[in-house]
């Protein structure tokens, strides 16, 4: 969903005059602009008070506590444990993204080809996790994955040895991927439903094998949706806290948990702040790097 939002500015830039018949001259437009500012202002004030100011204060604490300087960042990048966790955060997020792409792709494709009734059912299946409380969903995964959980008792019933799922990276990836899957399916679906299937038919009629038609025609056309979904999922996964905290163990700690421990348990505001800044900067840099990939969608499908 956010994929289409991030690209909205690009769309409105393309034709800034659309739908402004009232703005006669530049004076009228300036008045509208002022009015627009006034309407946006209240939301902006709230945003500054509870997002911008808190983030700035964390950044300041990261270089001022216990004393001014970069010692917190030096500590973060100089301690092997932290680097391991940082690397693990990226690895787990990457795995979650891969699992989501592989599961979402066929699902989103099927959504575009089935009849309207079945499509509503499939859309509902995607939306239900959105509506069910996130904590409850994680609780369900605890019940399923724990050593005395549903999966292991089923395995025992079949006479198979139990598998260790909770407090492992596998468990964390399974739980996170399920929570994030809707964010992958929705952008993929919105791109796929715009693909003209006659292009694939044309490739087939020109003698391409089905696999060739898929890989050289359909897949490239659907890639913008894959990129958009993958970026959202990866970025959201980087900041995940609840699922790794409940499903993970000491060997699957992610950066968010480390930040929380530093601040709430050790009262190390400077160190926790530095970690938070690293996490935030990583997220923003990724988003900035990925923005051109997502914008490609408009170039490719813009002709329609």
């Amino acid at each position, binding site marked *: 969903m956010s994929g289409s939002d991030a690209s909205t500015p690009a769309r409105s830039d393309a034709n800034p005059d659309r739908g402004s018949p009232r703005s006669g001259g530049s004076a009228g437009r300036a008045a509208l602009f002022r009015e627009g500012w006034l309407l*946006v202002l209240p*939301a*902006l004030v709230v945003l500054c008070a509870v*997002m911008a100011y808190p*983030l700035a204060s964390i950044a300041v604490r990261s270089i001022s506590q216990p004393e001014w300087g970069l010692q917190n960042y030096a500590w973060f990048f100089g301690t092997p444990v932290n680097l391991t966790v940082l690397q693990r955060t990226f690895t787990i997020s990457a795995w979650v993204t891969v699992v989501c792409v592989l599961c979402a792709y066929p699902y989103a494709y099927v959504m575009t080809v089935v009849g309207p009734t079945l499509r509503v059912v499939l859309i509902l299946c995607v939306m239900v996790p959105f509506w069910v409380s*996130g904590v409850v*969903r994680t609780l369900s995964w605890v019940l399923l994955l724990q050593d005395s959980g549903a999966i292991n008792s089923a395995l025992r019933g079949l006479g198979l040895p139990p598998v260790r799922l909770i407090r492992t990276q596998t468990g964390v990836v399974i739980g996170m991927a399920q929570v994030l899957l809707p964010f992958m399916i929705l952008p993929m679906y919105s791109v796929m439903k715009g693909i003209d299937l006659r292009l694939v038919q044309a490739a087939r009629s020109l003698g391409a094998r089905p696999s060739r038609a898929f890989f050289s025609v359909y897949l490239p056309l659907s890639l913008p949706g894959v990129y958009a979904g993958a970026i959202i999922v990866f970025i959201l996964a980087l900041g995940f*806290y609840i699922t790794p905290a409940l499903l993970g163990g000491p060997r699957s700690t992610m950066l968010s948990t480390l930040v929380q421990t530093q601040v709430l348990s050790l009262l190390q505001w400077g160190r926790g702040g530095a970690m938070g800044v690293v996490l935030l900067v990583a997220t923003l840099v990724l988003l900035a790097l990925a923005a051109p990939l997502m914008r490609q969608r408009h170039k490719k499908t813009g002709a329609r």
Partner: protein
Amino acid sequence: MTMSPFTRVLLGLCCLLVALWLVAPTLVVVPMSFNENKSLAFPPKGFTLDWYANFFSNPEWSSSLFNSLKVASLVAVAATVLGTLAAFGLDRMKSASAGWLRMILLTPMIVPGVVLGIGIYAVYLDTHLVGTLFGFVVAHTMLAIPFVLIAVSASLEVFDKRLELAAASLGAGRWTTFRTVTMPLIAPGILSGFLFAFVTSFDEIIVSLFITSPYLKTLPVQIYSSITRDADPTVAAVGTILFLATTLLIGLGLVLFGRERRT
């Protein structure tokens, strides 16, 4: 696209498995909520409604539900007003700076929850807002504004501005135009923004964990601390109730919208 029967079956199977993966895990809380043992171990034994009774009679649980409903209602109203105003404002501006402003207003969606959590906690400690209703409402409103903005902007995007022009040319004032033309046409967008804002607040956990206090706990915080503290099956009962409530709401919405479209 023509597909061989084999591909078709394979695709269908993949799709079915993913759909099950999306929906089925949540259902596991239902049998656990009737478990007679005071544990969350599988398989559940016997049948009891004790955990449901506990949810409604234990003040810890019922007050957290009440708090969540109170916070979410206030947030839904505040975020809908602010988000709708902002959506209108951005729609008026239609320029490069509007694009930037929109991005800025959407950032709460991507800032990692824990970073936001420690930041807000730091500021609230200084201003004595930890564990206050006002603190919860302001923080959740900030998190909910993007959802309202998206929903309302989407309906403004398809809204035909010439209708406003027509109303104005027929002598309607700006307020009358807004009330009788614009408002009814974008009402679905505002309503869905309202619902999203409510759900966002009702479900918010990470920031809430930081700004909570023993005197003011929301339901997700209570569920989280119950999961981490003990294996009390009441959480399974809560999960079942929440799941049923949302399913009913969605079903009701589908029926209502379906009927509206038909008439």
